[in-house]
């Protein structure tokens, strides 16, 4: 009898614990493959995605201490409202306003990407953050310094403990946490997706007509559902101001000269400017390029020079329809999802 209060107390604890656990499950769903996507490429079995790991990765993503003078975070050049690109910048300015040489690519659907960077030089998402952190024109920091700063920080040791069981802060743990955040950046809630998954209204007649044109003229490279086939191609935009030879620099294969990764067309409305060096400011300029401004080069993709004719034939009417379809690829939900935003400290 005299033990009853303790027992009740214990029961209460169990109930409360159970509840809070259930709430966690409700609020954090973990990684979910959209029904219209294929199997992810990222090795999830090597990095179990947890709420604590995701939240640590998110904090690191928005952490300016990753840069030499604590001024630049990943989120500075990968802004959520621009689908994690650097809106309005052809190339990005990093530390001390030093300019890079390529356009900041969107961070979305990384779990399905076999390679990273415009030239595919990085083959594992877990290795990707090292590049901007140590690049002198981006964050210009050493990994050793970053880890020292995180170890000395009042919050990080506890956050690493929450995510990995102990408060030890290592490079691999940091990379795994950042991958957890980036893998969760899934963009699959555009109008196109809801049509394909039959979860919303069908395409308008214009969008449907544009979709048909897209499938006949664009989808060889911009394959659904990612709207890229992850290949590297020379799309005939011609040599840029800095003679960036793209994929060739990482493979030294002459056939790869001036080839760059086929970018996804998802979230096009948010990710201008376009091309690897951001030289085209509008979608109209992109379509002008493909229809009549293409430059011939030895490594030009053969799909863009069929029957000795440069470019892709698109009539003015077709162009309007195509744009209608492309606009269905914008995922407002992705660029406003609070889970992916910088959180209050």
């Amino acid at each position, binding site marked *: 009898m005299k033990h009853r209060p303790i027992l009740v107390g214990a029961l209460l604890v169990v109930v409360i614990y159970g509840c809070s656990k259930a709430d966690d499950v409700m609020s954090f769903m973990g990684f979910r493959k959209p029904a219209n996507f294929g199997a992810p490429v990222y*090795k999830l079995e*090597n990095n179990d995605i947890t709420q604590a790991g995701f939240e640590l990765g998110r904090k690191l993503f928005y952490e300016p201490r990753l840069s030499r003078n604590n001024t630049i975070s990943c989120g500075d050049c990968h802004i959520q409202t621009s689908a994690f690109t650097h809106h309005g910048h052809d190339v990005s300015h990093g530390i001390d306003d030093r300019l890079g040489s390529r356009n900041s690519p969107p961070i979305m659907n990384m779990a399905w990407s*076999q*390679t990273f*960077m415009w*030239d*595919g*030089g*990085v*083959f*594992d998402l*877990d*290795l990707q953050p*090292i*590049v901007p952190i*140590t*690049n002198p024109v981006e964050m210009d920091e*050493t*990994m*050793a310094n970053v*880890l020292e700063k995180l170890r000395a920080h009042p919050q990080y040791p506890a956050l690493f403990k929450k995510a990995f069981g102990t408060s030890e802060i*290592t*490079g*691999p743990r*940091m*990379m*795994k946490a950042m991958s957890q955040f980036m893998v969760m950046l899934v963009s699959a809630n555009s109008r196109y997706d809801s049509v394909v998954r039959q979860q919303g209204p069908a395409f308008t007649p214009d969008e449907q007509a544009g979709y048909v044109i897209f499938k006949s003229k664009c989808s060889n490279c911009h394959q659904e559902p990612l709207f890229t086939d992850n290949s590297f191609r020379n799309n005939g935009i011609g040599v840029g101001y800095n003679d960036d030879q793209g994929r060739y*620099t*990482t*493979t*030294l*294969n002459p056939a*790869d000269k001036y080839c760059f990764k086929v970018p996804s067309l998802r979230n096009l409305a948010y990710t201008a400017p376009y091309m690897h060096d951001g030289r085209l400011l509008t979608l109209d300029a992109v379509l002008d390029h493909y229809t009549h401004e293409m430059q011939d080069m030895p490594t030009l993709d053969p799909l863009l020079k069929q029957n000795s004719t440069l470019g892709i034939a698109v009539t003015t009417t077709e162009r309007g329809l195509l744009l209608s379809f492309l606009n269905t690829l914008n995922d407002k939900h992705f660029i406003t999802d609070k889970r992916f935003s910088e959180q209050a400290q």
Partner: protein
Amino acid sequence: MKRILTLIGIATFIMACSKESNPAPAPTGEKATLSIQFDNIIGSKNLQLNTGNYTNAAGEQFSISKLQYYISNIRVKTTAGVEFVVPQDSSYFLVNEAEPASQFLKVRVPEGDYATLTFVLGVDSLRSTMDISKRTGALDPSSGMDAGMYWGWNSGYIFFKMEGLSAAAPVDPSGQNKFRYHIGGFGGYSAPTLNNIKTIVIDLTAGGIARVRKGREANIHIMTDVMKLFNGGTMVSIAAHPTVMFSDYSVLIANNYTSMFTHDHTEN
């Protein structure tokens, strides 16, 4: 003629088979420490960072400010031909001329008399593409790489790095006449690329076999003559090639330096 070819074919096949299905028994017995010393020299001189002045076959004077290279995948074979492979997780070392302790590689091998030493100059492709959590110590690109032996932009290790000053090198943006040789390339992951992984086999018979016993520490003393980088099958000129990194020319440099290791003696 045909019959001979057939016989050779069969012999090759049998050899391949026996290698697959009947591996020679690994040396058993208690393990002891084997030390392998990489003593960096240049021509007939002991290498002195920064202060030493040297002349290559192209007639160019230079000094060396940095010398680092990976030694990995160490194997030893007894006088009876029995091979022992050092467990891979304990078989990656970064030799750094600026850190004397790094020039003594300590591995644990069974007691025995060893006549052959085999190692990789560089990092094998499997480890180069392994999950980051499996790349510890000298191989961790996310924490322990202040030695700068990693290319982030083109994921892969720099196997061999030598830098120095020479009047033959053009002035670089930092105002120095510096040459830089950063040699890597594991063959590529998503596309085939150049492969500068070099496997080196050293016969210890002439210089003295390593008698590994408990309570003692045999030391295989290797001389690494970095002049071979310049003076080999290709005569490398600093003026013509002051900076060689991930490029086709790096293959010629790697082919040159493959011959830089000689066994001097063994301390038993």
